[in-house]
């Protein structure tokens, strides 16, 4: 290292403009809460958005909410079906837990005295680290950046700054749109962001780091909807597939494909609530999504009525090998063309499987949202947007999704140049908006943007409407 002296006294400001101030980024979605320090590449704290209620005890813990032994454990989610906060009390506690449990539980000590830098124990003073000041608020030293959806209500936005300032005592605060953050994570300031999370799918045009409000399109065709499609499929195949979550199985024996399960089931003294069971079933479904479900990648749609290269797309898929999935109870089955039919509704509303919910409309499908979103912006911007399509959110991890999306958008805008940017790493795709927040929060030029405590005290919560556009 001697031959390559490193000047570490100043971070290389001129190269990437970073200047870290230990800001915390909080990105809360319907399915999970992501929190971590700005400047890092993955959130250190990753929690399920669900919390448990048993009796009058509220449980915020990734382990305990999966514990069937807790009496009458109800699983709840503070987020609404639109992916915005509904239950602020729970959300506040949940988020605080996510931050304090993994990021700043022990108050950061002075590095000279916290023992980590001691050389040979010269410093004999024992610093009392585990005595948190009761008066102190958890985030007094950390600016906080929270992400929000483009359709967040202004009441909700004001509530967010209130909690950050009043409850957590942050010195500075910012609310960022999660779609903008996702585009930042992809290194773009102007982009068309397609985000399929758990509760909502959205298509939003970003120009120069600001969302174009007229272009905001959202629909429920996201992870939860895919789960309901899977359930619908399970109910329609013969024999019906019953999803039995892991916690109910005490042991299982392997069986042949298609054969009934041979497993012994767990007995519980306490009542298992519907919400708990649903939440556990959802885990199985997510597994199914990850390993079986596949989007027909195109070209063309799955149900395209004319033969391509002498064969119908559907027939072509039927001939290709299927995938086997083993349920927790040991029953397993080959999933052929059905694994694609589940998600065809994302692109083609006519082939969505029937669910208890009202049928989806054409306008809710991804291609139609893209069309509507792009048509709502200035013509001059459109080529740039279509050349910078950013795909983010967990549901876009469905196999074949980006290929199909590419085909759909190309056929919508045949004369435009389409380029889709989708992070290759699973974590980057799922944490897109957190990563963008992490980048933004560590930029030196962002220091002037923060809403400071003084500004909050001066203008009140409405300052957030004025500043965070």
């Amino acid at each position, binding site marked *: 290292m*001697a031959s390559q002296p490193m000047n570490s006294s100043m971070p290389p*400001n001129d190269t990437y403009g970073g200047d870290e101030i230990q800001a915390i980024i909080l990105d809360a979605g319907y399915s999970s809460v992501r929190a971590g320090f700005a400047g890092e590449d993955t959130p250190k704290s990753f929690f399920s958005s669900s919390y448990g209620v048993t009796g009058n005890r509220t449980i915020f813990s990734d382990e305990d909410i999966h514990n069937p032994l807790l009496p009458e454990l109800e699983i709840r989610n503070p987020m609404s079906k639109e992916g915005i906060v509904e239950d602020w009390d729970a959300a506040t506690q949940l988020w605080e837990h996510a931050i304090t449990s993994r990021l700043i539980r022990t108050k950061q000590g002075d590095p000279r005295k916290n023992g980590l830098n001691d050389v040979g124990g010269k410093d004999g003073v024992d610093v009392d680290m585990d005595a948190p000041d009761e008066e102190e608020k958890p985030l007094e030293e950390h600016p906080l950046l929270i992400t929000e959806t483009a359709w967040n209500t202004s009441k909700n936005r004001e509530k967010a700054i209130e909690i950050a300032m009043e409850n957590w005592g942050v010195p500075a605060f910012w609310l960022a749109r999660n779609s903008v953050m996702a585009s930042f994570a992809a290194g773009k300031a102007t982009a068309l962001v397609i985000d399929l999370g758990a509760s909502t799918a959205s298509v939003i045009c970003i120009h120069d780091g600001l969302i174009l409000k007229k272009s905001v399109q959202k629909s429920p065709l996201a992870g939860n909807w895919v789960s309901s499609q899977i359930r619908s499929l399970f109910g329609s195949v013969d024999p019906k597939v019953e999803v039995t979550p892991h916690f109910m199985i005490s042991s299982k024996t392997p069986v042949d494909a298609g054969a009934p399960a041979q497993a012994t089931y767990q007995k519980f003294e306490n009542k298992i609530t519907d919400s708990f069971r649903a939440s556990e079933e959802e885990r199985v479904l997510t597994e199914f999504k990850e390993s079986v479900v596949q989007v027909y990648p195109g070209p063309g749609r799955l149900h395209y009525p004319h033969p391509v290269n002498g064969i119908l797309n559907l027939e072509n898929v039927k001939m290709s090998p299927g995938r086997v999935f083993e349920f927790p109870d040991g029953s397993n089955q080959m999933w052929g063309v059905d694994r694609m039919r589940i998600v065809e509704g994302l692109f083609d509303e006519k082939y969505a499987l029937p669910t208890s919910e009202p049928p989806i409309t054409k306008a809710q499908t991804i291609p139609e949202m893209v069309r509507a979103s792009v048509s709502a912006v200035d*013509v001059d911007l459109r080529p740039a947007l279509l050349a910078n399509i950013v795909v983010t959110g967990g549901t876009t991890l469905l196999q074949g999704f980006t290929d199909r999306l590419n085909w759909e958008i190309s056929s919508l805008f045949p004369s435009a140049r389409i380029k889709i940017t989708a992070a290759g790493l699973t974590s980057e795709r799922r944490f897109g908006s957190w990563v963008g927040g992490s980048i933004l929060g560590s*930029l030196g030029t962002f*220091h*002037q943007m923060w809403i400071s405590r003084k500004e909050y005290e001066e203008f009140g919560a409405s300052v957030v409407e004025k500043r965070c*556009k």
Partner: protein
Amino acid sequence: MTSHDVRDMLDLPQEGAARPIKKQKVAAPRPVLKGLAREVQNLSGDNPIAIVPEGSIFKKRRFASRKPAAKWELRPFRNSARSDDSLILRHWRRLDEKRKLPPQPAGENRDSATQTMEGVVGGEEQMEDSGFAKFNVQVELFDYSPEEYESRLRSEDWTKDETDYLMKMVSQFDLRWPIIWDRYEYEPPIPEQAPSEADGNARAIIVAPKTRSMEDLKARYYAVTATMMVIRKPPIKMNSAEFSLHEVMLNFNPEQEKARKIFAENSFLRTKEEAREEESLLLELKRINARSERFSDERRELYARLDAPSSSSHTNNFTSSVGLGQLLQQLMSMDKSKKQRKSIMGGEGISPAGPSGPTQQNPDHRRESSARESISGPSAPNNKKGPPNPAERRQLSKEEEEMYGVSRHERIGTSGPAFRQEKIFKPLLAKSMNQQKIINNVLTELEIPPRLIMPTADVGESYDGLLTSINNLLDCRKVADKLTAEINIARAQKAERERLARESENAGEGGDVGAGAETVVGTGGKGNSGAPGSVNGTTTTTTTGPGPTNSEPRNEEKAGSPTASVKGVAHKRSASVMSAVSDKSAKRQKK
């Protein structure tokens, strides 16, 4: 098992594709190995697969140079780009020796937060500013006073309130029009009315907010800004960037922009088939164009060959080597001028009838030279068309002229600049020699030099005036001369008639004729001038003077001495008049 198999198994490229670096190693002489080692070596063949690197390429850590770990501190700083001064953020910075705080007394039980916060309070003055504050740039906007708005910026379509709103949006979103347009939600203020009763009315009055297109917004903003720019700084004083900005804003045409966007939208929404069709049509058009171009090229070429120099007549010229050399030169230059000439019918098909030797050499020569050119690379000067056109005088555009304050005058336009002197002498030069002389006489009499000492515009003007009055005078004199001559003749005739009548009356007194005649002449002379002596005097001066005119002798011939005397008087008078006139001009000239 050979190295080939090992490679096959490991999916390595075959021997030929070995990397050069490895070859280098192979070049080194290899020790002769024995036993198992040799077997292993045979396995790997010529290119040993290095598993263990030979010797360590890593340097050993130099513990000797290890210094104590650098100290870092969580240093507070503020950002001057912020509107409020209160936000103090902290980042890790290497502890600066000079700034180092005195060591904390041991046993002090304070944690870092309180410590640094106190440091902040104490050392607020020298707290550093963020290095990023300088990147905070803001759009410069022109703001207008209400008076300025009233006088210059009023518009039928825009209220002041909405204009204010627009300007606010523009500054808020830093002139990013797509965003401004996206977020533009102007609501006209609710007119204040009596609160309770007029409530229903008020709602009825409220006009639905106009939907503004991006072009409307731009047009308004540009109009306002262009006007304000001119108010703040007249176009003459703007620098070129400002001026061109002003021009651009002034010339913004929302209609054209709208039409362009509609066009862009249409082309954007073309279906695949339409796009393909358009593409193929364009290709077809290109092909047709290219074909017709080639056709006309060939035709031109053909014509050029047809009017080759007629060589039949002067074949003798080319019999000598000198003549041939000249011809070659001539042809070469012709050839160069038509460089892109292509052969249409196999090259020498229609070569001119002249000696074919040089012409046939020509293509070879050309090929050679072009080959040389290509060898020497593209950077070699390839310009054989002679020196580049002399730089044309730059023509100022209309805007530039306005900017630089260039003004054009018609009188200079045609013949270029000229001396005022010349302009003054132009009317003089148009006169006949005689008149020039007279005028010069007058001028010398007035003591005005023929060449003006200081021909300023004013002086020239009065000089002009002087000349015209001299001219007038001369004209007057001419007329007067004519009239007096006629009067004299008439008188003489009358006298003659009277004399004849008297003669006929007194037929007897014939002897008195001579004396009578004398008296008549005498009285005639007296009646005209009243001072015969002076008349004589002037007559002599005119005759002996430096410029006797041509007309005078003629007059004398016609009318005899009386006219001459009259003339003298007229001259005298005119001179006196003139002195009166020229007094003024002389004074002016002295100025």
